[in-house]
């Protein structure tokens, strides 16, 4: 087989004819299944070269949706605001069934009863609203949302929001959503496209789809010679972003996702800041002029030239003071004093006083609110934290500050005015915001340290999934550093959305050579967040429950049995919100004994008792390890099976969640385990037995003796009588 494989390669190197080149992909595609299977079977010591397996385009990072020379569309060069906008409009034109392009929103009366116009969402300085794409199947159909301005609102499709570029200088955070957009456009309906040209389709989706602990599900990267295993040069062989890793995702999956979700993709939220960073603050090439810095905030005019900050093209940006850190400007726990990274005095711009050097103002969170929103003549008495701080029966109705910027208002109103099913709750059950850099996946809370959200373990669960996909670190946001007023605290804290922040890459202005592979490495995140948007909590619970899948004690774990109740343990993930209510979480067991009605002549027959339930309790004296290596909690159930029962015990476990939403069965196939049960009781004491023996023997044998004696006496009497009578006659 290997001889066959070499022939065309030799031919390629010696006689590269045009006809042959045309045929090459076909030939390769015919052979690669064989190659792949060879690799899977006996890891070759020398390894394979990329040309043996993949298409040339794939090897050279040529994406199929644009000519090889188009650097921007090939992700060899950054999108600018203009190229991005143009591309988005073009894609919407070409894919009118799934894409609808927008800038900002129409406005109207928002969820807080404020009259808002479209210009409320325009950047202070350059005056652009954030471009965004509405993505769903039949996007021109469905309901029209006059406030947001989009069609394609379906009550039965879950919404998901993906936002890039809160921070102007974090350019990769624009590229990743743009790549996702390209991939959706290219993949929708393009079922079974062979992304890597190896002749296989959909053989390696994002993450470890086959659960073997290796990202490279089809083993094509691993099968390469070692020198080809780290194509992105990050030092990790066959890691995410390397050729051959998660490279052939399912177009079917993407298509179905688009059919079942409404994706709100906002690649560049902070248009002002991005343009300013690119055109003014960091002259090209930015990766050289601003290797570790750049413009972060939006372009709010903090220098009090007018009554309120007004768009003022004439005025230069005061770089020491202007701008608000959009990712500190959301209202939830806005301005919570969190130490050095927060502004010293919420709502102030210290440098404008001319006293400080502005070292703090990169994370300026916006002005303190000056409006008495509820008109009770008290100011800012109930800020946004989900609690009724002033005890007036209203919650969060007169806030301290936050959501003061066009960009954050845009996010807020888009979230709050997008209630397809009219239930008053946010449609966005999951949200993702891209940032850079640090190679992290972050999730709430950010505003407090040593605190855990009610969904801590569930958030952690999905975070880990995304971290596995990218080989990033999975952290609660405040474990990195505390932040207040960020996108995710607001989305989760106010709207209960499972919100994640990805910190992409290794630089703000990542070198253009790295755009493509870093974007590819992070491509799966946006699809994952869309996938879980239907019920992230339940999905996490499912996942956490699956960690216990093989951890219900099997019979061999229980044996040998001692006397008394039979303990059956299961190891559960910390944070899996198991219920200890015996009605939903319990071991079901039944005893199978030799049947009472057993035939004397047939085989052994069994009599089966009905299933009984035995509740679980936490065994804090024991520890256990989950399938993924984490420590878990031991739940134990004591089956009250009498010592003197012999036969079999059938058992299986069910775990319910506190929310009551799910029930999990163990073993997961719905079967039960069979425990052979020996007689465990004592056979009895010698003296008791002796006593009982005497009683029984006395009764039975004694009684028999008495009867026989009576009978014999009788018999003798009669014979005696008869003998006398005979004598007499």
């Amino acid at each position: 087989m290997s001889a066959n494989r070499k022939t065309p390669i030799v031919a390629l190197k010696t006689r590269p004819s045009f006809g042959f080149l045309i045929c090459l992909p076909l030939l390769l595609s015919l052979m690669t299944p064989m190659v792949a299977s060879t690799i899977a079977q006996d890891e070759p010591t020398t390894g394979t070269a990329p040309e043996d397996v993949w298409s040339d385009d794939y090897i050279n990072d040529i994406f199929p949706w644009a000519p090889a020379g188009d650097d921007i569309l090939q992700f060899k060069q950054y999108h600018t605001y203009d190229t991005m906008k143009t591309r988005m409009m073009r894609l919407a034109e070409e894919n009118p069934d799934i894409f609808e392009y927008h800038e900002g929103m129409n406005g109207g009366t928002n969820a807080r009863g404020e009259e808002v116009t479209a210009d409320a969402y325009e950047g202070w300085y350059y005056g652009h609203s954030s471009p965004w794409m509405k993505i769903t199947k039949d996007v021109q159909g469905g309901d029209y949302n006059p406030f947001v301005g989009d069609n394609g609102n379906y009550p039965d499709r879950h919404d998901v929001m993906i936002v890039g570029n809160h921070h102007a200088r974090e350019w990769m955070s624009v590229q990743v959503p743009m790549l996702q957009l390209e991939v959706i456009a290219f993949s929708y309906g393009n079922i079974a496209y062979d992304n890597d040209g190896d002749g296989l389709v959909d053989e390696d989706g994002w993450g470890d789809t086959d659960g073997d602990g290796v990202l490279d599900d089809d083993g094509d990267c691993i099968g390469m010679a070692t020198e080809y295993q780290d194509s992105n040069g990050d030092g990790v062989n066959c890691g995410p972003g390397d050729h051959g890793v998660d490279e052939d995702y399912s177009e079917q999956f993407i298509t179905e996702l688009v059919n079942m979700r409404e994706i709100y993709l906002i690649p560049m939220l902070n248009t002002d800041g991005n343009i300013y960073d690119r055109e003014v603050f960091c002259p090209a090439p930015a990766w050289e002029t601003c290797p570790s810095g750049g413009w972060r905030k939006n372009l709010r005019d903090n220098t009090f030239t007018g009554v309120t900050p007004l768009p003022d093209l004439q005025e230069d940006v005061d770089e020491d003071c202007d701008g608000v850190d959009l990712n500190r400007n959301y209202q939830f726990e806005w301005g919570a004093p969190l130490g050095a990274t927060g502004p010293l005095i919420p709502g102030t711009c210290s440098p404008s006083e001319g006293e400080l050097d502005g070292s703090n103002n990169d994370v300026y969170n916006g002005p303190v609110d000056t409006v008495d929103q509820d008109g009770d003549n008290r100011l800012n008495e109930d800020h946004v934290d989900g609690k009724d701080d002033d005890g007036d029966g209203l919650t969060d109705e007169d806030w301290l500050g936050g959501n003061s910027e066009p960009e954050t208002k845009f996010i807020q109103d888009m979230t709050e005015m997008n209630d397809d099913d009219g239930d008053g709750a946010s449609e966005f059950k999951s949200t993702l915001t891209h940032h850079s850099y640090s190679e992290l996946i972050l999730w709430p809370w950010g505003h407090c340290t040593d605190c855990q959200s009610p969904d801590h373990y569930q958030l952690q669960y999905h975070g880990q999934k995304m971290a596995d996909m990218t080989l990033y670190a999975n952290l609660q946001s405040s474990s990195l550093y505390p932040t207040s007023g960020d996108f995710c605290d607001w989305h989760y804290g106010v709207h209960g959305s499972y919100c994640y922040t990805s910190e992409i890459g290794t630089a703000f202005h990542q070198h253009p050579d790295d755009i493509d592979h870093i974007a590819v490495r992070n491509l799966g995140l946006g699809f994952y967040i869309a996938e879980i948007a239907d019920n992230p909590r339940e999905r996490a619970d499912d996942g956490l429950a699956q960690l216990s899948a093989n951890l219900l004690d099997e019979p061999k774990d229980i044996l040998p049995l001692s006397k008394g109740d039979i303990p059956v343990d299961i190891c559960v993930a910390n944070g899996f919100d198991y219920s200890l209510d015996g009605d939903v979480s319990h071991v079901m067991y039944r005893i199978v004994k030799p049947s009472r009605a057993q035939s004397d002549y047939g085989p052994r027959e069994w009599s089966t008792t009905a299933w009984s339930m035995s509740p679980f309790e936490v065994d804090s004296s024991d520890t256990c390890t989950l399938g993924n290596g984490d420590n878990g909690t031991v739940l134990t159930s004591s089956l009250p099976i009498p010592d003197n029962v012999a036969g079999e015990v059938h058992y299986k476990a069910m775990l319910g969640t506190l929310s009551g939403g799910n029930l999990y069965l163990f073993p997961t196939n719905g079967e039960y385990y069979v425990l052979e049960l020996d007689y465990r009781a004592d056979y009895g004491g010698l003296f008791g037995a002796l006593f009982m023996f005497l009683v029984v023997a006395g009764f039975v044998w004694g009684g028999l003796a008495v009867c026989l004696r009576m009978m014999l006496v009788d018999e003798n009497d009669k014979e005696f009588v008869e003998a006398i009578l005979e004598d007499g006659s």
Partner: protein
Amino acid sequence: MAQSDQFNGRLGLIFASIGAAIGTGNIWRFPRMVGANGGGTFLIPWLIFLFAWSIPLVIAEFAMGKRSRTGTIGTFRIFAGKKFAWMGLWTAWISTAIGFYYAIVAGWTIKYFQLGITGGLTGEGVDTTEVWNSFLQSPGQVIFFQFLVICLTLAAIWKGAKAIEKVNVVLMISLFVLLFMSLFLSLWMDFEDGTLDGATFMFSVDFDLLFEPEIWINALSQSAWSCSAGMGMAITYAVYMRKDEDTVLNAFTMGLANNSISIIAGLAVLSSIFAVSSDPLATVTGGSSAITFLALPEVFAQAPGGSIGPFVMMSGFFLALSFAALTSMISTVELCVRNFVDHGYNRERSVAITGLALFIFGLPSAIIWIKLDSSGVAFPEFLEVQDHIWGYGLMFSGLFIAFSIWKYGYLRWKAQVEAGEAPGGLKGYLGVGVSAFRDDFINTGDNDIEVGRWWDILLYIAFPILFTVLMVSYFSDMIANTEDVWNPANPKGLGIILAFWGVIAVSFIFLNKYLIQRPIFRNIPEGADVDISTLPGGQDDKVHQLGDLVPGFEHLASDDVVFEAEAV
């Protein structure tokens, strides 16, 4: 006057009755029940039911048979009335139907005795499962031993009561001796490992378990089936009683002897299994035939005393078992034959016909549906289905006996009320009616023990309750544990039982009117008190005594024997 057929001595009757009562149930079922039901705990209800169920029923049977002096059909014809002769037919049929396959089971025991003698069960590399499977799967072998059993049985009953008596005396005494021998060796084995755990277990009471209804139900079933109470055996043997026989003492002796043997057999089996098996209770709670033919040979092979011990144990035990089976077989066949003879058929011919029927109708149980269970052990499914159907039917024979007693009591009371001899109302019924059977047929003056009011209470109150509990618990158990339980095609279901019962009961009730057209001859010893005038069937002009000249049956009266008797 024609000479009646009688047992020679009192002990003869006792041995025959004990032989009927003691069957394989004592030897292989009892140890299993003890093992599965908490050891010594089980013995308490088991003993209680001996006195509450078995002995009272046997007393009733003896009393009925001694008065009617006919087999089951005649007894019901006389005691329950013409319309109810079919109850006797039912009783006879159930017993005979069981005999069809019991002959095969008895054959197994003889085969194993033969194996014991020839050493086919001991030695290196003997796999008892293999031995059992190859035996059960060779129809020739099974049929041969079935045939052997039928021949032995027929030989024993060919000549009537006196021969039955002699055979039973010999077999029963041998059985005692053999079982004691086995017991001795078993206890030795059990003691060798330092503890008498088998014996200890068998006599240790767990008082908590005593409150489990299941233990009581199992004890009742063991008592009901193992003692043959209410199955017509005692009626049949009572026909051969001498005129002044003590029915009550006989019943007690028979019941106690039955339980005595059970204890000996239980002790022998449990001790030996506990001595050898690592999980004795799992072994002992397997199927009955599994214990006997798979586990015990393995256990016995480890008996002490070199090659002598295993040899003695194996052959002795299986010989005892085959004796127990044979004596039960004898009573089964005699029950059927007696009914033929009652109706004027020649005894030898009846015996031959019964024997032939046993052989032919037993063949399917011997050869078809020999299956392997999940653990690879062969079992005869057709035989098992037969047992499944007719085993429970036995209980109804007991119910019919109780019915006769209840009916007699009611009629007697009514008659006396009409004659002005007894008060009416509930008080009168309780005073005269309920005790009528006991007064008229049990306490006849022949008994050393006067039967008191307790018997009435047991028969009128305890019996119906226990009967109901037994049937309901069995059937509900079956319904709960059997899939597709109502489908008559399911051999393990309830549907098949009810279907067979229905067909048999309906056709017997239909046959009843032909049955009572035929004269019946009572086997009355000379000078016996045989007044049946107060009974429902007492006025039946077709009920004759042996020796009466009946048109069409003159040959019975003109028998040589009769002339000889008259000539004296």
